[in-house]
């Protein structure tokens, strides 16, 4: 399993060849509280780095989820429709949102590794 990369908007990315799996971080799910709904992009949609790609709703807030990389959506996590709580239970595993075919691998350089993201989150406290 490859290591995770992180965006400043609290999305994570796991790269496998030219496919990136995207979700929200443990920090993000903790901040949101109980997730009650996730609105995912349509398969086939082209998303752009840092542009809105999904919406996650908790009991008290709704937040946009931004695409950490540009690319085409090739899969979405349909499990979340019936069990959005997976996002709270396993944000970086079963709670993934969507998979992208990466358009420009160079964009990966703009993301943080785990140590940098941990430091970034500590800076927010």
């Amino acid at each position: 399993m490859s290591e995770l990369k992180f965006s400043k908007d609290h999305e994570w990315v796991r790269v496998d060849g030219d496919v990136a799996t995207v979700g929200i971080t443990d920090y993000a799910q903790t901040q949101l509280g109980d997730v009650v709904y996730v609105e995912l992009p349509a398969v086939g949609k082209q998303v752009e780095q840092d542009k809105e790609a999904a919406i996650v709703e908790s009991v008290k807030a709704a937040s946009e989820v931004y695409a950490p990389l540009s690319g085409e959506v090739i899969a979405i996590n349909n499990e979340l429709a019936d069990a959005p709580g997976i996002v709270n239970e396993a944000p970086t595993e079963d709670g993934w949102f969507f998979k992208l075919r990466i358009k420009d691998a160079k964009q990966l350089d703009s993301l943080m590794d785990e140590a940098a993201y941990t430091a970034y989150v500590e800076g927010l406290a």
Partner: protein
Amino acid sequence: MRYLPLTDADRRAMLSTIGVASIDALFADVPKAAWLDRPVDLPPHQGELEVERTLGRMAAKNLPAGSAPFFIGAGAYRHHVPAAVDHLIQRGEFLTSYTPYQPEIAQGTLQYLFEFQTQVALLTGMDVANASMYDGSTACTEAVLMANRVTQRSRALLSGGLHPHYRDIVATHARLAGFTADMAPPDVAGDEDLSALIDERTSCVVVQNPGFFGRLCDLRALAEAAHKKGALLVVAVTEAVSLGAVQPPGAMGADIVVAEGQSIGNALNFGGPYVGLFATRDRFVRQMPGRLVGETVDVDGKRGWVLTLSTREQHIRREKATSNICTNAGLCALAFTIHLSLLGEDGLRRLARLNHARAVELADALAAVPGVTVLNDSFFNEFTVRLPVPAAPVVEALAARFILGGVPVSRLYPDAPTLADLLLVAATETTTTEDIDRFARALREVL
């Protein structure tokens, strides 16, 4: 909660806290040219007795709906409102409270809104209803906006049997919000074929049942045609009492049902405030506008109510909210719920049958007037007649005889000369046989 105006001492304390010498000083930034340097041009104040006399003289110029044979409908109907409704809604806890912005402390308000939603869902044959909207016409526009979101399309098709005011309000939003509203021509004959006009760009088809001209239609084929092209069927109802007799839109394949709820529990009120009903299918609930009350349990396991799915709303979603309406017509919705609760299911059915029976009696009486043709082959409590002359002057002549004899279609379609001879007439449970006789007699004299 009482409204307590400020005392002079309060004002002085507040001014001294913020360090301003006078209230006028607060307006120092307003250019002097914009100041009014003389008293407001209004008559001097009067005592209560004089005010009553003046207003009484002004009111006497009206011919009130309650004091004349009354056949006006076209989206607003004179029904009997039981005294219990007005008595109960005037309780201070109901009368003075606004839509719940601090909802959990207003369990009583949430509970009646929950009951209201349940009644609306049952009446319309839908899964879920919101806590009400301003009125039927704005609810109709919200339905179009919602259909645009659900389908990701921006072209609505509006029936010629939809109330012209409802069409106008959709058109206004279309112009300003940047979507297309295709208007079918006024459908007097009831033979429009909207199915043929639906294509892959159509977000929704909006029809009214009973239609503006009074006709009832079976909407199942239209629902199927819309769904085949991925469009939604929006059904508007302007006479809520009809739902006691007519098959609910939900049973005919509607995706969104909107209605004017005035007929149940609410007086004519000179055209407002009214109450909009809005109901849809479970799968579209996240795209629904308006406030929504849900049932839950508190920490002790007791039944309670909360505002739910609030993430659709403006205070959380800002510009991405499903609607910029973040309120509801609470008191009118309460009146609706109390009246409907008093009627019960059986009572509503009987009320609807009575309305229809009165309208049948009216149709027979008018059809017997020489030169008058009843155009409808079906109706609930309102229908269209063709007169041998333009309808508007006839209605004026009837009013001079103290009869409020319906709505000339030209009032709503002023630019359609072919519709000038048409008159919409309605009867309700308040219509007596004597009213109908007087109307028919007067019409004979006028024509």
